[in-house]
């Protein structure tokens, strides 16, 4: 199980595969305003990596620096073994990017955009396959200006993938998608990762990060406040699992001695147990052993969202 380190002394999850992105002590300021304060993390080859943070946390600045679209003020950045500030266009031709604040001319048609961006790469993906994958095959003659938000988003992802990149950046990918489109997009993102492409997902959507990502870095006000797998971040933050059931006659004192149990409360017939680790399994086993299996045994597990809110509200500015 990889380790997770949380602030105030953020370390980082060492990737299990060869790193394709290395960021060490990255600093950036806009004028007098510091935006990134010593950000460090690494992304392994083939990972589905999530850069998670609230608006203004420094996510977009970080990925712009990773793509060489913005210069860092300090620190070391290597992407696919290259310094983005030096390699510039040479690096960007090897990566795919779906950017938050990018657009196309309103008058360009979907098919024309796909053909144009395919022409920028030596071995582009077959356009009919790409159009079908991103549900653009019925929109090829439609001008960009007439597309809905979700259709535009799908087109941008297709443009990011047209050059068969080994690394792809997806910034706020599902922002304008309806729930059905969102789930379809998640499936396709998993397929991109399964095909061997490293995916960097930039998002403020905790559910999206938790469902999709193998590895997450949480940024808050320009600092890394957590780095690990979704499960390890939740576990390391120490969020409690709460188990509840009703039994007016059960002696609750032995429950306090079960592994991982921190607290047991009784309110009338309702029993509430807080703890960490496999508390639900231990409580269930105890009830069965006492021959009092509760019909309404229920558990509430700590979520990444709980951890995210705690991390981004409690860290000092």
């Amino acid at each position, binding site marked *: 199980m990889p380790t997770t380190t949380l602030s105030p002394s953020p370390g980082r999850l060492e990737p299990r595969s*060869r*790193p*394709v992105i*290395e960021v060490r002590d990255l600093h950036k300021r806009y004028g007098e305003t510091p935006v990134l304060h010593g950000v460090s993390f690494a992304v392994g*080859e083939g990972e589905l990596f999530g850069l998670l943070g609230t608006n203004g946390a420094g996510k977009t600045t970080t990925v712009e620096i990773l*793509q060489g*679209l*913005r*210069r*860092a003020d300090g620190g*070391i*950045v*290597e992407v*696919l*073994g*290259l*310094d983005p*500030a*030096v*390699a*510039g*266009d*040479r*690096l*960007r*031709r*090897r990566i795919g*990017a779906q*950017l938050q*604040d*990018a*657009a*196309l*001319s309103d*008058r*360009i048609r979907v098919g*024309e955009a796909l053909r*144009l*961006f395919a*022409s*920028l790469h*030596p*071995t582009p993906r077959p356009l009919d396959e790409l159009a079908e994958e991103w549900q653009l095959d019925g929109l090829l003659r439609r001008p960009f200006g007439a597309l809905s938000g979700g259709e535009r988003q799908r087109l*941008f992802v297709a*443009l990011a993938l047209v*050059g068969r990149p080994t690394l792809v950046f997806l910034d706020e990918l599902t922002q304008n998608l309806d729930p059905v489109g969102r789930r379809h997009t998640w499936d396709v993102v998993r397929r991109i990762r399964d095909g061997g492409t490293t995916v960097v997902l930039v998002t403020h959507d905790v559910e999206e990060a938790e469902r999709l990502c193998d590895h997450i870095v949480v940024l808050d006000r320009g600092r890394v406040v957590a780095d690990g797998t979704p499960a390890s971040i939740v576990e390391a933050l120490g969020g409690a699992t709460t188990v509840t059931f009703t039994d007016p006659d059960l002696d609750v004192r032995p429950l306090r001695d079960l592994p991982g149990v921190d607290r047991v409360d009784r309110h009338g017939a309702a029993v509430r147990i807080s703890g960490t680790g496999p508390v639900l399994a231990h409580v269930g086993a105890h009830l069965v052993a006492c021959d009092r299996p509760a019909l309404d045994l229920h558990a509430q597990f700590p979520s990444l969202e709980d951890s995210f809110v705690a991390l981004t509200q409690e860290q000092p500015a």
Partner: protein
Amino acid sequence: MTAPTYPVALPTTPTPSALRAGLRTVLHLTANELRLFRREPVVAVSLIGFPLATVLVLAGVFGDTPDPEFGGVSPSDHYLAGYIGVVLASLALITIPVHLAGNRELGVVRRFRASGVGAGALIATEILLGAVLATVAVAVVLATGAAVYGLAMPVDPLGVLGWYLAALACCIAIGVALGSLLSTGRAANALGNLIFVPMFLLGGGGPPRDVMPAGMQSVADVLPLTHLIGGLRQSWLGTTDDPHALWYPLAVAAVAVLLAVRTERRRAG
């Protein structure tokens, strides 16, 4: 920043040479932009419609009889030769800045940069696009004017070509600089029109220099367009009263290029 250290394999697929790939990119981008311009009638109005309508009116008003106030040539020849410069001024002050600033404002430039299209390729596309649009517009204006009023053959065709290329280079440089400096398409359109109207009126597209008061002549002398139109008229008609110092518009263009480079570097920070 350190030098690369990771033994990550580079793509094994052979790629065309950087120069050939860059040229191919520029050609694809230019073809795309030309296709999009065809769908945007406003560009044709400002680049062809306005100069064509104005020159037809002026040539019609002043006629085709040689006139001392027009340097001894026919007013229609005077205007038609000079309106090559007016088309180029419209390109420099309106078409290119609105296109560049608008594309940056919308995020189109950012989209291309993220796909590895370099600033050099984008500028080269703008140059090629400007050259094609201007040449088509000039050809339409001259052909229509010649068909309506007749037009003398150039006295010095190579001189006309030389001045045309110099004017094209200057105007594209100024257009790119304005497009870099201005942050929105609307701002570029407003400022471009504000500069274009007095420049074309005083720089050779309006009344002949001899009927202008001395103060207006002094203002006209500092406009690069005055010298470009003067050079075109001198080589086409063999005579002109307009000043035509080639170094002056070239110097303005050089300053424009420096400004554009500085602005783009600052923006990349």
